[in-house]
């Protein structure tokens, strides 16, 4: 059993190393030179040279690589070129927002999607099945930023139900409970739009899996034993489809992380995704690398979590092959 886990952790480590190396080379290859983004009539040539030395851009490449790996693992991302502040400080304040957005939208869209998927598989040809297929295709085809822009315009401007931007209203309400409510109130539109866009694809995946499972022999036998339809659907069919559903979790995760980047841009949320975009546009090596690294870490961590859940749900992996008799 633990050989399984060792392999999973080794895989995760491999992904981590790949991200760090990709990170290092991708940004070093970037044309453009960091210092030159800080252009100010008052800067003289010698001043610019000083800045270039400050960020250690004049060391040989391999030396920079080893320092880079060591620093990445210790979360010391160096100084951001744009803000001259430790990158970790910048990202630290942004991670909670991204986590909140990612977490809620992932859980909600998977929960709603799964529940609808099972219901649709149950009544084949029913109205619900058509609705699920339609909503699924919508979430596959509608560009997320377009839907979000329209939602923002409708629900934040024409009918000011939700706040326009950011994660906290100004001036900040005092006391923890009002602040939490205020935070949630700010998060409803962004996370809600991600759920709206995401649950359809979940429903379709789950419906297809359930349809396959319901065609198996053991369902026929369970029916032959006179078990109630609910028990058959939830205790037998759903429980056996749970492991593959959790693997969809793995596949959907990178997509959701990418979705977060666009959502943070549209709703001007202070998150890691938006930070990645700004750093890339500003040729800010350390920040862009760090943001990409954090997004990668988030994906790996959730991969392992989904893996763990998958093993718990699927005895074929958890139990493996115990000795005969």
């Amino acid at each position, binding site marked *: 059993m633990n050989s399984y886990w060792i392999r999973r952790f080794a895989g995760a480590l491999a992904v981590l190393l790949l991200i760090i190396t990709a990170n290092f080379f991708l940004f070093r290859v970037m044309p453009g030179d960091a210092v030159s983004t800080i252009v100010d009539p008052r800067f003289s040539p010698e001043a610019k040279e000083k800045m270039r030395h400050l960020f250690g851009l004049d060391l040989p490449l391999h030396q920079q690589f080893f320092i880079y790996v060591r620093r990445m693992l210790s979360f010391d991302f160096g100084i951001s070129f744009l803000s001259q502040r430790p990158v970790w400080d910048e990202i630290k304040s942004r991670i909670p927002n991204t986590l909140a957005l990612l977490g809620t939208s992932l859980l909600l869209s998977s929960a709603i999607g799964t529940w609808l998927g099972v219901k649709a598989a149950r009544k084949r040809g029913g109205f619900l099945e058509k609705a699920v297929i339609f909503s699924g295709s919508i979430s596959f085809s509608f560009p997320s930023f377009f839907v979000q822009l329209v939602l923002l315009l409708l629900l934040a401007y024409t009918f000011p139900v939700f706040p326009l931007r950011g994660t906290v209203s100004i001036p900040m309400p005092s006391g923890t409970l009002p602040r939490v409510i205020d935070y949630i109130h700010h998060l409803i539109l962004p996370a809600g739009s991600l759920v709206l866009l995401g649950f359809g694809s979940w429903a379709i995946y789950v419906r297809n899996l359930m349809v396959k499972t319901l065609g198996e022999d053991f369902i026929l*036998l369970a029916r032959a034993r*006179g078990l109630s339809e609910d028990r058959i659907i939830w205790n037998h069919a759903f429980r056996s489809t749970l492991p593959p559903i959790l693997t969809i979790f793995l596949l959907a995760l990178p997509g959701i992380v990418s979705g977060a980047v666009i959502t943070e841009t549209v709703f001007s949320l202070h998150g890691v995704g938006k930070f990645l975009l700004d750093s890339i546009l500003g040729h800010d090596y350390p920040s862009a690398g760090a943001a990409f690294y954090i997004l990668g870490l988030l994906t790996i961590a959730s991969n392992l979590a989904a893996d763990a859940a998958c093993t718990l749900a699927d005895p074929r992996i958890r139990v493996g092959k115990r000795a005969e008799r």
Partner: protein
Amino acid sequence: MICIRDLSVTYDTNARKVRAVREASIDIHHSAVTAIVGESGGGKSSLIYSILGLLPPEATATGKILFEGSDILSAPEATRRDFRGIKVALVTQGAMNSLTPVISVGEQIAETLRTRLGTRRREAAVKASELLEMVGLGPSFAVRFPHELSGGEKQRVVIALAISCSPVFLLADEPTSALDVITQAEIITLLGGMVRETGMGLLLVTHDLPLASSVSDSISVMHQGKIVESGPAEKIMTSPLHPHTRDLVFAANLATGRGFQ
């Protein structure tokens, strides 16, 4: 006993209409083994599923199936559902996934006992291990998962599940065709033994005539949805009337080296 009178089952997939069973009539008696023999795909399974009321949506069954005198074909779904497992049980071919892969074998049996007979949790667990023993599997199997069992062991669990609520009739649809010859023999003797001990009626559906003749009391031959010939096992084996039956008997003797009398 179950009397099936002029049962016809037709499937109309949007491609074409298929009449799988055409006015079949057969009687299934208590504590006796009735066999239906025919080439595979001849409508045998449709017959079993119409008894159970588990035909797919696009299939329609006409005719009458009398269970202890009352026609269950037209009975409402609730009563038919109540029948399943208590009155009439099913054993299928037992290909790879005849058991829910994620629930332990013992739990699946206990679950049936709890939900169908309302037995309490601890008692159901005890009964489950007894059932496993009855079908020749030790108590240690209760905690095992289906993927840890061999084909034969899985089939035994399916049988245990079927008889868990001591049904009046057991319908077996090709129960042994996926197994090797030795396990085949063991399963058939197990089934035969149960019919004798509990007085349960067994409807054995198979394409294997020698196997059928070795255990069943009466045999009906089915060809293209119609029952062409019925009769006691020896009569069918010794003096087949219908040409199709004769071909089957000839093939059976050829296989067992007895040659043609």
